[in-house]
């Protein structure tokens, strides 16, 4: 007898609930319980959903979103893997930016106004370790700060205090977050407990829906194991809810048959099924493309092309399905990866661990377009040169929380651990956000300049602020902040500040301006 997987990571086994210290039974709580009553009113009433798509391994941003306006430098930096200009998929409304030829799905989403590409998302002093960088993205911490819970876990804890003891209840009858394809993600870890439940992989999800059980041997332990698993299922507070939600959706649109497509198909089904679950997390791996990222001699094919096709086709199918199911008004999604890759390719037709990279925000109510500029690419980049970040990844998180989930003020700061800039990404009238862009960003206007450039020791940086909080940082090519020149509130207008590069090595530096939703990076060259 050939046996298959023995341990079933079905929902009941993967979900874990902290017990009650005082011995009260979970079942004893009803909606009339004072604790539940006390909690009523703390939760935002919304049917909005956020879907997080994690791309494990570090996605190569420069071959995903191609800087048409800097194509010469781009091509020069990675000749063996560069996408030919005539193969790059163009995007309506912008001549500066295109995407990988295998991403036709994203191209049509963008052109339909359902996607925002946020350029060069990262953070100061990036980590190049998969593990550490993943933990930073999940926790939302600074690079040199250890935070053992996750940004989404903190949000859900703020919204649903007391989880899991008094849940489910009438106010939140469903899981707060559902994670597919991973276990106990740090992103969903709250200050006290993990706020999500896990479905370990799609094939098992359908077994779970169908009541398919892993066989156990006819031994003493087999009998006991079967018994405990049965109890585990009865115990699982959310089992019946999830099954019932899934059962309400007998037909769905078609999806590409890959892991991400399968995972997103489940997400669409549960959303349509009526779960009020706020957050879904899915993930797909293989983006660690050190070698053979593209095929030799045909750079539009290869591993990375396959990965991007998978991402693009799965998300497009998901969006089409949501529309067909009539729930596209409720859903916003976002991709992320622990880091981008090096500007310069290596000799193995691959790229090594890098820093900032673009990410995609998608949904019917996204504020469409390209946020930010193409990353600066040196004319002759060194092996270790990296894409410097324009937008802090936590600004993206904070913007989605505020614009999509209506989290404001001190709550937002508590969740995000500090104040981050607001980038216009989503429209949810309930939060007071509109589709009107209040940020005036003429394409040509340079908001930050320096003179002289190149410079020897000192250069003067002039920046234009629309008023309010203004930040000017100088970073090196590894993305490290070497100096923060300005970090305070200004009156509208032009201001100047001097940058003294004493004791810093010669080379390229970047001056980064952040003023409300505005973001600009200016390359500077220190020379002899």
């Amino acid at each position: 007898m050939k046996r298959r997987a023995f341990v079933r990571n079905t929902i009941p086994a993967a979900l874990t609930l902290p017990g009650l210290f005082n011995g009260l039974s979970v079942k004893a709580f009803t909606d009339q319980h004072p604790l539940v009553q006390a909690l009523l009113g703390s939760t935002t009433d919304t049917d909005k959903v956020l879907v997080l798509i994690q791309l494990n391994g570090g996605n190569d941003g420069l071959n995903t979103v191609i800087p048409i306006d800097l194509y010469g430098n781009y091509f020069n930096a990675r000749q063996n893997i560069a996408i030919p200009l005539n193969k790059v998929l163009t995007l309506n409304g912008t001549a500066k930016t295109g995407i990988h030829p295998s991403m036709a799905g994203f191209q049509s989403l963008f052109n339909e106004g359902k996607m925002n590409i946020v350029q060069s998302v990262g953070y100061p002093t990036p980590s190049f370790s998969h593990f550490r960088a993943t933990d930073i993205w999940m926790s939302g911490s600074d690079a040199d700060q250890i935070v053992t819970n996750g940004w989404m876990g903190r949000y859900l804890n703020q919204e649903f205090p007391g989880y899991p003891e008094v849940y489910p209840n009438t106010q939140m009858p469903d899981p707060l977050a559902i994670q597919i394809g991973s276990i106990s993600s740090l992103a969903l870890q709250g200050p006290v407990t993990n706020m999500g439940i896990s479905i370990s992989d799609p094939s098992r999800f359908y077994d779970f829906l169908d009541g398919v059980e892993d066989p156990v041997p006819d031994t003493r332990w087999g009998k006991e194991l079967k018994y405990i698993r049965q109890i585990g299922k009865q115990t699982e507070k959310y089992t019946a809810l999830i099954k019932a939600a899934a059962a309400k959706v007998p037909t769905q649109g078609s999806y590409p048959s890959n892991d991400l497509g399968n995972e997103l198909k489940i997400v669409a089904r549960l959303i349509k099924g009526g779960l009020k679950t706020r957050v879904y997390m899915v993930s797909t791996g293989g983006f660690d493309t050190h070698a053979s990222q593209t095929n030799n001699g045909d750079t539009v094919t290869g591993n990375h092309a396959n990965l991007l096709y998978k991402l693009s086709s799965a998300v497009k199918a998901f969006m089409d399905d949501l529309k067909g199911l009539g729930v596209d008004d409720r859903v916003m999604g976002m991709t992320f990866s622990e880091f981008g890759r090096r500007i310069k390719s290596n000799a193995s037709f691959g790229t090594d661990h890098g820093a900032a990279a673009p990410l995609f925000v998608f949904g019917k109510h996204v504020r469409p377009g390209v946020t930010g500029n193409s990353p600066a690419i040196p004319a002759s980049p060194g092996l270790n040169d990296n894409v410097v970040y324009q937008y802090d990844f936590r600004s993206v998180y904070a913007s989605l929380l505020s614009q999509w989930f209506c989290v404001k003020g001190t709550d937002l700061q508590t969740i995000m651990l500090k104040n981050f800039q607001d980038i216009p990404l989503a429209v949810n009238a309930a939060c007071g956000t509109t589709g009107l862009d209040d940020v005036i960003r003429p394409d040509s206007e340079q908001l930050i300049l320096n003179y002289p450039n190149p410079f020897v020791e000192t250069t003067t940086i002039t920046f234009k602020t629309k008023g309010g909080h203004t930040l000017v940082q100088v970073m090196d090519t590894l993305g490290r902040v070497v100096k923060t020149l300005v970090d305070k509130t200004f009156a509208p207008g032009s201001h100047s500040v001097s940058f003294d590069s004493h004791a810093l090595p010669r080379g390229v530096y970047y001056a980064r301006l952040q003023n409300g939703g505005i973001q600009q990076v200016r390359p500077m060259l220190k020379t002899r």
Partner: protein
Amino acid sequence: MDRRAFLSLTRKTDVPELHLAEGVRGILSGLTPYSGPWTNAEVAHLLKRTMFGAAKADIDYFRSMSTSQAVDALLNISAAAQPLPLKDYDNDDIPADDGDFPVPMWSTWINTVSKDGNANAKRMQSLKSWWIGQMVNQDRTITEKLILFWHNHFATESNEYNRGRFGYTHYLLLRQFALGNFKQFTRAITLDKAMLRYLNGYLNSAGAPDENYARELQELFTLGKENNPNYTEPDVFSAARVLTGWQINFDTEVVTFNINRHDKNNKVFSSFFGGTTIAGRADASAGDTELDDLLNMIFAKNIEVSEFIVRKIYRWFCYYTIDTDTETNVIKPLAQLFRDGNWEIKPVLSALFKSEHFFDVLNYGALIKSPIDSVVGMCREFNVQFPLASNNEQSYLCWSMMRNFAYVMQQNLFDPPGVSGWPAYYQAPQFHEMWINSDTLPKRTGFFDFLTYNGFTAGGFTMILDPVAFAKSLPSPGDPNALINDSLTMMYRVPISDQSKQTIKKQILLTNQDQDYYWTNAWNSYVGNPADTTAYETVYNRLRSLYRYLMNLAEYQLV
């Protein structure tokens, strides 16, 4: 039989199906001494059954012995001096004239009689915590688990007797006889203050005979109720008359025999006991003499007594269903050994634990952990650090927390639900499965989560599972495959598939990467610079997820 092959779930087709009992494959092996492999897996099996959890250091210690030497070493009552239970409570609600009042906090209360109900309730709580402490600090013997076995067998409830000193002397009695002579044990229990009070023996008098203890002595403690023929209702009454006259002086807490309350007439028993007559006595030692006569008569039904006790031992240490092969190959011969050894307990346990049957792979993982085993075993196996022994306050807080978790999982030390003990050990057909229900299972996993994620803070000390230290104690923590395998050998007694291991490795240890070296590098980076908090957190987060996940699977409930 190839043990590894079995453990990897290969079904043997040559096992006759007729040995299925209630759908479960029977075990054919008997008491022949086991001579198979002696690796971490076998040692962990023995230790998880005879101690609370199998700690890494204990496994290493016993692995260096032979199977026989290991069992011999385990079968001893700890000779180390025990600390005394301490007053871990204040005097709130305790009257100033009660004997407990002058006892200072963090002194022992065992030398002072207290008659106040509140004070004794507090004494019992401290005694329960203290016992948890004894279990946590057990030495490498069967002592504490065996005491718990006998506590369940000669069950009493402190809620009924509510005297701290009764509870403590009861515990000491269980400890004294745990590996001794069962007949002498039964005699001592008959006159034990907790038992006399619990089953009303102290009220039993010639004028008003109380059958309570007389019945349970036969039904629950020696003969069982399954024999055919068996003792009769008149036998219960006659035995009650034999036991008349024993009293407790509640001022001094001393047991006395009062001949004036004793039934001095002859007591006649049924044909089950061969029509025995126990002669009524009228002297000061009448109570002792007649008690000896009664026990001699009962233990003369030696087949019934020996088989009843051996079955109970088997259900506690092996499995609750006793199929016909086990009855023939294990129960009968062990009962014979028990009789031949004149009721010595140790040779019976020795033969069982050294047997092929005990180490039969079909026996692995068949026991559902009791709540106490879950709580204490988890802390010991993961080497959870406790406060310094000298810090009584912190120590009692930690033990009390564990006691409370076991309590909400339905095992309240010193207070089983009745004189039959915990239903898991007698209630057919579910037996051990009674421990697990939709209320208690989340509390078990909740305890694991609590000690893995939050930890318990007691007066400035935080008791928390350290997943990094645990991984570090394993042979090759830098190799994710070895780390998972070695952890599973420690934690599980049942196999999981390679596919599951791969999934767990990839999703947890590799953060969805495909190359093992990502974990290896992270581990080496931590080991190379233990002071680097970032490197530490990287491995800490993943190991915490790993062990939490493994503890939450159904497999972890089995030993």
